[in-house]
């Protein structure tokens, strides 16, 4: 069975969004990509939608509310929390401090680096996608 649930992307940078779109095509990911430039929009969408997303790919460094603050708010909203959507960070900056900040403050299912070449970038996207496409989810039963 091909998983057709949409993938939610939260990314404020137009170049990175273009790269993601190219990467999805490169990996033959047919799922719909729903893109937001801020957490506010994403929260509004998920709260109102009846579609279960496959996973959320979120940039850490966002204007206004950053990724960690966004995840914190999502966890405080009962409806979104009960959807148990896998949440994955991807960011340019990776350091002990940054990764600690993410894993200490909120519960996330991964933290990936935005790579320097398109091939590597696509490999990461493919791995994340394959993993969550294979993984079982409570909403399937």
């Amino acid at each position, binding site marked *: 069975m091909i998983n057709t649930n949409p993938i939610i992307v939260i990314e*404020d*940078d*137009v*170049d*990175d969004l273009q*790269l993601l779109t*190219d990467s999805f095509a490169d990996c033959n990911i047919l799922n719909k990509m729903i893109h937001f*430039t801020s957490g506010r929009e994403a929260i509004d969408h998920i709260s109102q939608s009846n579609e279960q997303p496959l996973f959320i790919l979120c940039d850490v*460094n966002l*204007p*206004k509310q950053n990724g960690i603050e966004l995840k914190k708010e999502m966890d405080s909203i009962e409806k979104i929390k009960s959807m148990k959507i896998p949440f994955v960070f991807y*960011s*340019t*900056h990776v*350091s002990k*401090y*940054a990764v600690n900040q993410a894993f200490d403050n909120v519960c996330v299912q991964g933290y990936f680096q*935005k*790579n*320097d*070449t*398109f*091939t590597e*970038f696509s490999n990461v996207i493919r791995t994340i996608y394959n993993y969550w496409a294979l993984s079982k989810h409570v909403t399937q039963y």
Partner: protein
Amino acid sequence: MILIVDDTPENIFSLKHLLEINRFNVDTAGSGEEALKKVLKNDYSLIILDVQMPVMDGFEVAETIGNFNKTKDIPIIFLSAINIEKKYIKKGYSSGAVDYLTKPVDADIFILKVKTLHKLYEQKRELIKIQESLSQEVETRLHIEAELREKMGELATILESIPQLAFGMNPDGKIEYVNQQWFLYSSSEKALPEFSELKNETKSDIAKALKSGKGFTKEVFIKHLLKKQFRSHVFKFVPVRQDNKIIRWVGTFNDIHEQKAANTILKEKVQDATKKLTEQNFLLQSRNEELQQFVFIASHDLKEPLRKIQMFISQLENKSEISEDKALHYLSRIKNSAGRMAKLITDLLDYSRLSDSFNLEVVNLNDIIAEVLQDLELIVEEKNAIITVDKLPVVNAISSQIRQVIQNIIINALKFSKKDTAPIIKIYSKTDSENQFQKIYFEDNGIGFNEMYLSKIFTIFQRLNLRDKFEGTGMGLAIAKKIMEKHNGFITATSREGVGSTFILSFPN
């Protein structure tokens, strides 16, 4: 013992016999010379002396005995058969005899007389003995007293020579002696100084010590009579023992007031120094954190354009059959990222240069604003902006830096204006109610922002809007904040989304 002196052995024999049956011890001498030798050697209670003797007669013997100190008190009885005339009897008495008997003598009366004289003599000797022992006792006592006086004098000299207050106390708790220093604290040689305590603790300590025999040392406050202040002293109270018996107590008060005051000052100084160090430490710590955050943010934002440049290059390399359009697109993105990176680095350098040393000068804010507006003339015209400037105060500042702050604020006001509304910027000043700060207001009618993000707008590289809508590095307000802090002032803002923002600069008065 009774001595019989006679040159006639028969006389001696009969007398000796008579006395011995009456239980007297008897000694005898056959001549005056022998008698004198014997009286010097032995102790006699009575001497019975014949008058008529060859070489030395009885009178001479009696006189000689009377002249010896040792024998002068021994009673002498003359006993004579021949010299019975009155002149001899007179001579006998004047030579020191107590009796002059003429023979024949009645044996009973003679014995009675001997008994009486013997008894009298014994009593007399007893009396002398008592007298002697008494005078010896008196002498001993006098000696002890003299010794005591000497010791007391020694103690007094010692106590007088020390700088401390000192007193001697007898085991009954009566003050016996005080030194001169005492009178600085007590008006009487019988009373202790006034203590600064509620329940007379020290006096009961003294009473306890007198009872237990154990001395003590403690800190007390006693009142100086001239300075009229309680001064800190170490009070030491110790027993003086002689032959394992406490004969006296000695107490001293040692003034430690200055010492304590010096200690307190030292303590305060150490506390001050520690406080300063702690403050500096805290400052250093917060600087460190600031720096760490700076490095974190700077490295993140500098890396981003770099990564993109690498990414687009890798895409150009990988795709051999890439279209020209696509290639040109990638190249323009590379150029864009490189430009952005250059701008970031310039801004960062500006920001870090703000820490350099500086000189304050008198700055006319109206002049500065006029200069800034002249530089921004083109944008102002393009946006049809209306800018009003009131008369502003003069402040002490670094002119070039304040210019940068004002420029950043005005540029923001023009940049974040509403799409179809001409920007209106009002610049005016107020003095706060406590007169501590000169406040300069920059009020606009732009898009505004949610005050929830107030702290973020002053942090480096933080932007509230997407870059493709409003270009910028996110450094403008961070630089403004740092400059205001350097001037011991601060920057803040109030805003409402869709209505406008007001940025406020506060300069210390």
